[in-house]
């Protein structure tokens, strides 16, 4: 294999380990199958086709690969949920509806290296027994849809897709299905409803676990773009060796997308858990902007709970040791520690805010997103997300009272855990965590005597009485 060099100015940081993003920004690279084949492409597919499907799943289980879409569920285990007695067709869906604010990794895979995704998908289809797969691409990636359609046609022509793949008895067909700008289609059951041609209202689990009752009520595996690409590398290395990358229970590499107030925002592929928050933000991303300091970080896409940079966290780190107190900058970037710190690794979107940012404004921006994107199926979420936005609209405008903050908090806790899908948590967590960690700052944006706050009947009577008294006094 040729030595990999990168476009000037876009070289990976020395702390990175490029597995999935190996070809992103690579010098002389393009998304054609010719390039991909000249680089040893589709070798892992041939290797997998010589294995038994169950063995491929076994390797993925051994690798400890966890889903990169947000929930971090073990991929091999998910595949294993297809009922063994199943007689219906099995479907595989690639979730390329990347729309979590702060996350922008899948964009580069589908634009620059579509064949890596296709190879990972064919291997996955072989493992789970899927004859048809759909790639659900968000509408806002029109160029990606074109590139992937072209890549599919190329792969079909070369015999990596279609009938009798690589001369074996395995056949499989891929189709691109474009979304239409709805965040909720990133939720797997919402995505399935959308693919069925309906409004993407998520289904309730149980009973509608996609692996048993998914697309057209058939067993369906829905995986993120990055996850499916990892499958290729699991096969290349073998599950056990792959599991050696990263940390136990948090294996492999993952792509962190850093945006906001840092010197060098961008995408960085690192070994899971082998880098701390401080190393990422200061060493890799070049630290805060001139004259600024870090104030808060959302570590896993906008649904993840916000972390305050001046906080201390009481966690077991490294795993297996006694609990101890660590600084924000010492937090290792893995699924479990971030969860223990009161947030989540989510989809890898790290949004950084420095001391120039007003938290009420940040929260309002996030609330507007969720109010816009709630699908409207469950009442707590539909009504709650809109009310949370209205309250923070007031807060930003300097028209909220201190009591509004309590109302805001109570609305959030009435959504959390009371909806069909995880959108409820996604819209409630930013509010809950922001109030928990920045209450004083938010309170400072409220006003005591606020004419726009509704009064109760008693207060209203009192106000009228005073007004009348003053008016009478003025006349006499």
């Amino acid at each position: 294999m040729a030595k990999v060099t990168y476009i000037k100015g876009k070289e990976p940081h020395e702390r990175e380990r490029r597995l999935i993003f190996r070809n992103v920004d690579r010098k002389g690279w393009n998304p054609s199958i010719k390039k991909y084949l000249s680089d040893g492409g589709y070798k892992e597919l041939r290797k997998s086709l010589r294995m038994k499907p169950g063995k491929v799943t076994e390797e993925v289980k051994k690798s400890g690969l966890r889903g990169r879409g947000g929930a971090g569920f073990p991929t091999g285990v998910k595949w294993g949920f297809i009922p063994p007695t199943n007689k219906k067709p099995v479907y595989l869906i690639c979730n390329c509806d990347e729309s979590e604010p702060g996350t922008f990794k899948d964009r580069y895979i589908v634009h620059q290296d579509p064949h890596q995704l296709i190879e990972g998908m064919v291997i996955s289809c072989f493992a789970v027994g899927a004859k048809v797969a759909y790639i659900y691409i968000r509408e806002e990636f029109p160029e990606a849809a074109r590139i992937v359609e072209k890549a599919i046609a190329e792969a079909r022509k070369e015999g990596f897709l279609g009938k009798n793949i690589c001369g074996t008895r395995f056949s499989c067909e891929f189709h691109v299905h474009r979304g239409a700008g709805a965040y909720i289609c990133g939720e797997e059951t919402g995505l399935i409803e959308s693919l069925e041609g309906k409004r993407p209202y998520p289904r309730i689990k149980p009973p509608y676990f996609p692996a048993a009752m998914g697309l057209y009520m058939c067993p369906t595996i829905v995986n993120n773009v990055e996850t499916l690409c990892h499958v290729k590398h699991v096969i290349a290395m073998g599950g056990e060796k792959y599991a050696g990358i990263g940390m136990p229970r948090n294996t492999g590499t993952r792509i962190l997308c850093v945006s906001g107030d840092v010197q060098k925002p961008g995408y960085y592929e690192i070994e899971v858990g082998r880098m701390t928050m401080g190393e990422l933000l200061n060493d890799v991303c070049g630290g805060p902007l001139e004259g600024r300091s870090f104030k808060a970080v959302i570590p896993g896409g906008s649904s993840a709970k916000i972390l305050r940079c001046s906080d201390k966290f009481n966690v077991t780190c490294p795993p297996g040791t006694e609990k101890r107190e660590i600084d924000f900058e010492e937090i290792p970037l893995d699924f479990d520690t971030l969860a223990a710190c009161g947030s989540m690794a989510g989809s890898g979107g790290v949004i950084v805010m420095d001391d120039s940012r007003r938290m009420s404004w940040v929260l309002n921006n996030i609330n507007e997103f969720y109010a816009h994107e709630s699908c409207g199926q469950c009442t707590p979420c539909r009504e709650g997300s809109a009310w949370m936005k209205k309250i923070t609209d007031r807060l930003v405008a300097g028209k909220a009272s201190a009591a509004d903050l309590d109302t805001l908090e109570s609305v959030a806790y009435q959504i959390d855990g009371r909806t069909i899908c995880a959108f409820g948590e996604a819209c409630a967590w930013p509010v809950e965590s922001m109030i928990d960690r920045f209450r004083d700052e938010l309170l400072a944006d409220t006003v005591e005597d606020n004419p726009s706050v509704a009064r109760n009947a008693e207060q209203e009577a009192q106000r009228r009485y005073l007004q009348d008294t003053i008016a009478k006094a003025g006349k006499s």
Partner: protein
Amino acid sequence: MSNSILNEQIASPQSDGTRHHPPFEITRQIEQEAELRIRQYPNDRKRSAVLPLLHIVQSEFGFISPEAIEWVAAKLDLEPIKVEEVVTFYPGLRQHAPGKYHIRICRTLSCAMGGSYELMDKICELAGIDRSRTSHHNPIAVSPCGTWSVEFAECLASCGTAPVCLVNNDFHEDLPAAKASELFENYK
């Protein structure tokens, strides 16, 4: 649902952008493209092709008219309401004409921190667009000449190069308000 009631519900009001889009007319090429999309799904699951067909219509005619909804419904053996409910759900599907160049600016956190609201203001100034009458149900504002229209989009997934926007199918990144007039030169 009778067609007359449907027509009232889904009427597409004229906009300044209407003159830049061809009238709804199904050609053989569109028929073929539609057939190809329908075949992506199992025979008894034609309904799945609702979004692909609507995308074809929108890219050809700029927006989805009542006739287009009826055509898609007939193509897929569906009640028109089943198509209508999809059209009204998705922010990416439009029921009236945008400008010749439809500019979608990302509004979400990282882009907002990078100055996307300022970018929106600048573009509106350059295009002579008044956004004061936009709302959740009517998010698009069109310039009086119909050449440009603007809309805020929710996260275009390129937060590292904020602020970003889409002009029709072209993606533009690293676009602070100061570079807006440069962008404009390409869309006249």
